[in-house]
């Protein structure tokens, strides 16, 4: 390992780390906000209501994130209407294109996780809500969604890790995230092993951090399932 080069470029890596964390966090928040209504619609017993959200989920899960990002970043410029619209200053920036495609992508995966969790709600819980005179929206807000979020937590933890790893493709379209930083270090000093392994270690650390956080959350949210302490 050429430690001197790596140490000299640590500020670049830290800057990249910050961009990665930012991209992933914003995409996860936007994705989750989009995923909740999608999941509720996809879990509906009515096939006509299910159709569009399910098709969206299928397309997002069935195509590579890299291609989705290319469609938005390189593809949208094909249309004059997009280039002339007020959104163009945003859509021509690699950063916003990456954020948009990540959000849409994680919304698809998260919606599928939530849909499964919503459909697994024990019927007795819903029935109890009805017996108390709750309306459908109140049942969703107070019963179905909280218990579905809890059930979805382990699978959602995996999705967060997938999003973190998927976000590395941002480095391909000129964004200086962790992977982009490693590419710069490699092209300046030609130390491929050292440059990419350093980025890999940062990602590994982030992964462990996410796993740790979700363990704590699971412990808290599943506290009622723990064996009783006497």
């Amino acid at each position: 390992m050429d430690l001197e080069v790596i140490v000299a470029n640590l500020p670049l890596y830290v800057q990249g780390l910050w961009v990665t964390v930012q991209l992933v966090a914003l995409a996860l928040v936007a994705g989750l906000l989009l995923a909740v209504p999608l999941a509720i619609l996809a879990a509906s017993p009515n096939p006509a209501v299910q159709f569009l959200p399910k098709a969206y989920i299928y397309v997002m899960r069935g195509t590579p994130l890299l291609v989705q990002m290319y469609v938005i970043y390189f593809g949208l410029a094909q249309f004059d209407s997009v280039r002339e619209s007020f959104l163009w200053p945003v859509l021509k920036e690699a950063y916003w294109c990456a954020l948009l495609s990540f959000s849409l992508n994680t919304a698809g995966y998260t919606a599928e996780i939530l849909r499964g969790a919503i459909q697994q709600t024990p019927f007795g819980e819903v029935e109890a809500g009805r017996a108390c005179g709750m309306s459908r929206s109140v049942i969703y807000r107070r019963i179905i969604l909280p218990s579905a979020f809890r059930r979805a937590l382990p699978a959602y933890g995996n999705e967060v890790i997938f999003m973190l790893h998927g976000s590395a493709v941002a480095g391909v379209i000129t964004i200086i995230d962790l992977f982009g930083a490693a590419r710069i270090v490699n092209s300046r000093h030609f130390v491929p092993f050292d440059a990419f392994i350093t980025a890999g270690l940062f990602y590994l650390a982030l992964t462990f951090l996410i796993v740790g956080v979700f363990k704590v959350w699971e412990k808290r949210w599943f506290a009622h399932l723990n064996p009783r302490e006497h």
Partner: protein
Amino acid sequence: MHEFLTSVFDGVLDGYFYPFILEGMLLTVQVALLSLLLALVLGLVTAVAKLSASRAARTVANVYTTVIRGIPDIVLMFIIFFGGQVMVNDFGVWLLDLSEAHDWPVKLGWEYIEISAFTAGVFTIGFIFGAYMGETFRGGIMAVPRGEIEAGHAFGMSRAQVFFRITFPASVRHALPGFGNNWLVLAKTTALVSVIGLEDMVYRAASAGGAVRKPFTFYLAVAVLYLVITAVSDVGIRWLNRRYSVGVRNA
């Protein structure tokens, strides 16, 4: 709507789409299948190592699966493609110097070997998904009832015989859902080989889309082709599932 569609598809797809993009799809499928083969072998070895009595084997397997699953595939691909290149050549030169310095009768080593993007792509993806397959197979093997394995031993089968005749075939059914998921993720991961210069369908969509100034059209076409791969795989996985669940009663 009609005008919009003509502006998107107007004449560009013929000639470019077939054969140019479809040939790229053939390469995508080749990379996917070859890396699947490697991943299956590595996964099986990993699963056996993880369940073995040897502490060293367990540690190596655990480090492998933890590290691989903690680093993005594109980063691993660059480590192996660029780093592997440097390592192979440093080793070759070192060997060459050594054999010249000691006047070995046979000259070993090499000046420069280029690892092709195809080899690097297949090895990286195979190596990555070997870790995921290892976890899946481990779960499958653990789901085989202990009594079946004991029955094998009672018949006087050797440990290898028990594994290949009982444990492995019986574990397939339990490992299939995880295997199916891994395969679908693997197929999509092949898109990354375009970044290291392999002319798969994503790479070709970039050049064709650039040439006729219709990037959206070509990336969309590639997205649809990925959906075709996913849909065909779904049918295949369901067929396998039926085959390996013969004799299992479902509620």
